[in-house]
């Protein structure tokens, strides 16, 4: 187990990057504590897999260093970094039994059979594989195979970190739920550093203590799931996290305050005086119907079971609301109120003003 430090890390797949688009990964500095659960979250092509491959050693970064505890491992190959990885598509050794699969990393390291047996038995119990130990690995379902992949990482006690690369992609939806909570449970049990890469916000947010949100090769925000939800530093985070995402409404700025269609909107932050173009960001959870507020027309109400998603048109822009099941929803026109503590001003995408400057 180890603390992971990424220092001035940058990567480009081109030999001589010139433009900013040439960088698959823009400069980043990170420190990950020993035993934490982390997630890299972002849409496809955001650089999260590049970053993962740099950590695992499959890719050597163009600039910067990867440090495990005090040791610089930037140039070390994967096998010398003592990491384990679970891939998108399950990797098992088809011809071996489940037992032999789990024993494989230990036997490769010349560990005696007695220790192998006790470790494998212990891990099989943790990953619910005990009943299948004698079966051929090729006969298992996708979720069983993913458990084997994970188990091969867990059996070793020299592992610095376990990396997950979209591990639930090929798992049936109704089993995803089980495997997801299993992973969380395992992390709490063995307290190993785990890094989880995904495009799925639910997986990232429920698994990780800290999430790194990435977009076009750049880290947009690092924070706890609560921070990402409550105070997005960038409209991208607001949009990408939460379902539906944050409402982003272009507004006018006068004396640092935001105005929407002439009405003043109370926000937590103030815009600097020189800013002209700005947006208001407010999550659908924090927009409510009220007696006084901004006029809006109700366009559509979608029943999502435990809540309703209400689409409205407000000052020529689409504003979504999340309304609990059973709460009354007006028809036709209504007035909207934005919760002042959760309404913020963004400019050029970034949160502005005190506490919000990049």
């Amino acid at each position, binding site marked *: 187990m180890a603390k992971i430090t990424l220092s001035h890390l940058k990567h480009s797949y081109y030999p001589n990057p010139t433009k900013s688009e040439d960088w698959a990964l823009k400069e980043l500095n990170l420190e990950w504590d020993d035993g934490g659960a982390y997630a890299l979250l972002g849409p496809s092509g955001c650089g999260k897999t590049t970053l993962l491959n740099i950590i695992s050693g499959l890719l050597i970064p163009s600039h910067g260093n990867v440090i495990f505890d005090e040791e610089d491992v930037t140039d070390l190959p994967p096998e010398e970094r003592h990491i384990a990885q679970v891939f998108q598509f399950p990797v098992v050794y088809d011809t071996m039994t489940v037992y032999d699969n789990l024993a494989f990393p230990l036997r490769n390291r010349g560990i005696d059979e007695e220790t192998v047996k006790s470790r494998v038995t212990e891990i099989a119990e943790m990953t619910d594989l005990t009943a299948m130990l004698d079966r051929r690995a090729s006969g298992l379902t996708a979720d069983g195979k993913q458990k084997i992949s994970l188990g091969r990482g867990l059996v070793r006690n020299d592992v610095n970190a376990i990396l997950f690369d979209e591990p639930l992609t090929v798992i049936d939806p109704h089993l995803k739920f089980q495997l997801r*909570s299993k992973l969380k449970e395992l992390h709490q049990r063995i307290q190993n550093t785990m890094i989880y890469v995904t*495009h799925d916000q639910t997986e990232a947010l429920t698994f990780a203590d800290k999430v790194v949100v990435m977009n076009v090769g750049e880290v947009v925000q690092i924070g706890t799931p609560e921070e990402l939800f409550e105070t997005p530093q960038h409209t991208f985070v607001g949009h990408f996290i939460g379902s539906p995402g944050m409402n982003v409404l272009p507004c006018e700025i006068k004396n640092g305050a935001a105005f929407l269609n002439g009405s003043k909107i109370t926000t937590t932050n103030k815009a600097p005086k020189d800013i002209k173009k700005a947006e208001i960001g407010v999550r659908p959870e924090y927009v409510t119907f009220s007696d006084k507020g901004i006029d809006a027309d109700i366009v559509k109400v979608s029943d999502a079971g435990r809540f309703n998603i209400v689409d409205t048109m407000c000052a020529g822009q689409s504003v979504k609301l999340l309304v609990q099941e059973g709460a009354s929803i007006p028809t036709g026109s209504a007035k909207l109120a934005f919760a002042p503590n959760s309404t913020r001003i963004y400019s050029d995408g970034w949160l502005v003003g005190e506490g919000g400057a990049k």
Partner: protein
Amino acid sequence: MLELKQVVKKVGAETHIYSANLTLEPGSFNILLGTTLAGKTTLMQLMAGLEKPTSGEIWFNGENVTGMAVQKRNVSMVYQQFINYPNMTVFENIASPLRVSRISEDLVKKRVGDMAELMKISAMLDRHPSELSGGQQQRTAMARAMVKDSDLILLDEPLANLDFKLREELRDELPRIFNERNCIVGYATTEPTEALLFGGRTAALHEGHVVDFGPTGEIYRHPSSLLSAQVFSEPPINTAQVTKSGDRIILNEKVSWKADKALPDGKYTIGIRAHHVLPKKENKDAVAIDGTVQVAELSGSESMIHFDAYGESWVSLSHGVHPFESGQEATLYADVSRSFYFDQSGKMMNLKAGGA
């Protein structure tokens, strides 16, 4: 109108569909909801005519079409994989179904143009599928399915391979797109939330059985059976054995609550969806459930708490952040006024749509 009358599909000794009876109205949006291997794809292939039923009949607009080849029916399909012709441009891809019938080039252009606009891919008409994102590829496939005015459009988990946010975006647009057409839509999905957002009618499928069929919201709030409720719950619905005796419903010696008088005495299975089991008492009817927390998943806006109580696994889904340690003793509150009662055969016994 498409009718399936006692349609059975067997492959070898295995039965894939057990006597399905479904009536799909013209212009309706019909969701086939169920897990993988529940029979959604088989049912769609039977509807399209790609497969022939082992027994039973399929009628379309008063005509028996059982066994009629798919080419002779006016059907379109969209699959989970993005299936497009790789060597054709997006325009040619969308136009391809029109090329079979002799339509003037002007009309082809107009219809492809309209379709592309509806699917928001007008700017990509000259590109090849490989130059598009996953979402755009699937939009192209859908545009192709809809361009020829089919009587029946079947979509088999079309959003499953898309990124989370793209899925959300298309989910938002699809009902609007289909609203304007008078064709029958069949849409297979594994996700209850997707079914709810689309509305329309839902057929709940479980291991080859159609366990429920009706307006989506009604099926969700008043499932006819335990199986239907299980198919239509994400996270899984909490279940427990209870006994009704006199005016009490008894879960065990410590936990009981007031019963509805109309319910006969006897043993029942209750079903309570995860969002009616909360870490705080928010409803006067909620009963306390003491358990041991397995794991708490906190997403920042919601908390999902998995816990064991009285020999069952329970899930609680609540707003906000409610941290719990694994192994911690905790009390959670189940709003039993929102619970379903199922008799020993699994039949729903609630008289009114109380639960959800």
